[in-house]
């Protein structure tokens, strides 16, 4: 690790690169209208998921953290309700991903791949955002009626991003294989 000198090692570059990608998605997603302002489908989670599957939980955590902070700074929602919603969503999805990696280690036979992880994290993302929105910002009962369709949307997005993520992972591992030949590094 880079303890004294601020030289970026490979991990840093990977985290930075993925975080940048996640931030872009985060910013684009901010333009999405939502029945509850600030509650988003969490498309940026697909990046967290890919990082988790390729580089482990630590890197995924970094990417998520950078995405939430920098993303909301860029959108201008830092420290506003929208920020806390994103943060709680990301926290929810990371918690589930962490639990899932423990599960995958404990029960390899029943291991979760991209689609399963993505669905679970999307649902966790949405429920935590909703929980925050409902308990902290607008405890209005009308909101509860929105929960089922929002969770349906999360489920659909989860499946879609999961499929996308597994396609990306496939490509990346093909690229990795190609990268064994020296000239394609960097």
């Amino acid at each position, binding site marked *: 690790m880079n303890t004294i000198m601020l030289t970026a090692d490979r991990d840093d570059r990977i985290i930075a690169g993925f975080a940048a990608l996640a931030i872009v998605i985060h910013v*684009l997603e901010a*333009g*999405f*209208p*939502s*029945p509850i302002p600030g509650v988003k489908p969490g498309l940026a989670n697909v990046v967290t998921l890919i990082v988790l599957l390729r580089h482990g939980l630590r890197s995924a955590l970094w990417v998520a953290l950078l995405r939430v902070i920098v993303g909301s700074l860029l959108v201008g929602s830092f420290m506003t309700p929208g920020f806390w919603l994103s943060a709680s969503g990301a926290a929810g999805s990371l918690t589930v991903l962490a639990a899932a990696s423990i599960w995958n280690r404990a029960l390899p036979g029943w291991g979760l791949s991209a689609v399963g992880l993505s669905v679970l994290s999307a649902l966790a993302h949405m429920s935590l955002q909703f929980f925050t929105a409902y308990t902290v910002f607008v405890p209005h009962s009308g909101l509860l009626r929105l929960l089922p369709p929002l969770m349906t949307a999360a489920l659909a997005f989860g499946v879609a991003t999961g499929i996308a993520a597994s396609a990306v992972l496939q490509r990346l591992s093909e690229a990795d294989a190609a990268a064994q030949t020296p000239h394609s590094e960097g």
Partner: protein
Amino acid sequence: MLQSPHLRLFFRRLILGLGLAVFFAWLALRPAADSDDNRVVQREFLAMGTLFSVSVYLEPQQVPADAEAALARLERVLQDYELRWRAWDLQGTEDTPDAHADTDVTTATAGPASAPVNLRQINKVLAAGGVASVPEPMRPLFERAAQLSRLSDGRFDVRIGALVKLWGFDDETHFRSTPPSDEAIHAQLQIQAGAPALPTAGVAYGPAPGIQLDFGAIAKGDATDLAIRQLRESGYPNAIVNAGGNLHAAGRRGERAWRIGVRHPRPDAQHRLLATLDIEGDEAVITSGDYERYFEFQGQRYHHILDPHTGTPARGLSSVTVVADSGAAADAASTALFVAGPGGWQQQAYALALDKVLVVDTDGQVMATPRLAQRLKFAEGISARTVEPGPAP
């Protein structure tokens, strides 16, 4: 610049993304399905011993403030109506707006000192053995009641006031917990049998010692008619009046019809409604049931719908709903059908020329006339047998 395949890919995705965003924006912002909600003005108040809820649907040019004023006027009219038709003075009524009741009505319509101006005074004259003249504004409902009483063979009868009092159903605050003695009931039935019928074109009634008049089984329905009429005259043809579960609706609620439900007489977790119904035009929906005003004594339920012929609560049915143009007629008819019971309601409906009736018997069987059955949307798990109203087989 667009030569780069990556850039082309980027733009393709951007356009796709924007398209999706537009789609989602449309989904979120499209006009709410029920934007009629904010065109409805509602007022609730307590009158005639029940909870009134009146809603009007505003025409495009109408504003809520005017409608609220019209509903406030209606509330006062119904309070006056209550003062006119209440059968007796209430006891222990420190919390009812009744303290100045007599002065209000009396000063407004005072005739000669002896002429009663409201039902309480008529009952006082009858109790004193006199002949009570019926004040002009009360005559139409007297005539209506006399006619309905005749058509129902006395199953609907406003002369049961003393019986109602005997049972303690007259005052919300003083219910009994035991039925009256058979002797007392029998004595009252004798008095009723000997008393003159309500005159069909009567301007006076009596002498009829021991008789007290109670319009409780027709007045709420009539009040809903009055309310709808007054709202229409005030320029609100689209309205629904709920007088403690006695409904009368007119016109529409914007894009859709007024939609009402009929409560299940023996509700459980799944079935709190029997059915729902869209109101067509101007219709009253009135239900008589054994499930609200009752007391229990030694495991037996004694409810408030008394059979004037036996002097006891009518048995066999648990709920009768009548849909008709007139609330007064539907109100009296629902009582008459309830009293007629499982074997007699079809014939009674026929005699009263009713074609829209929904009945539940105490075994839970649901029956409806074809005209009503085809319009009802029954709750899940509820099915009705279609029964034609008709003369006895």
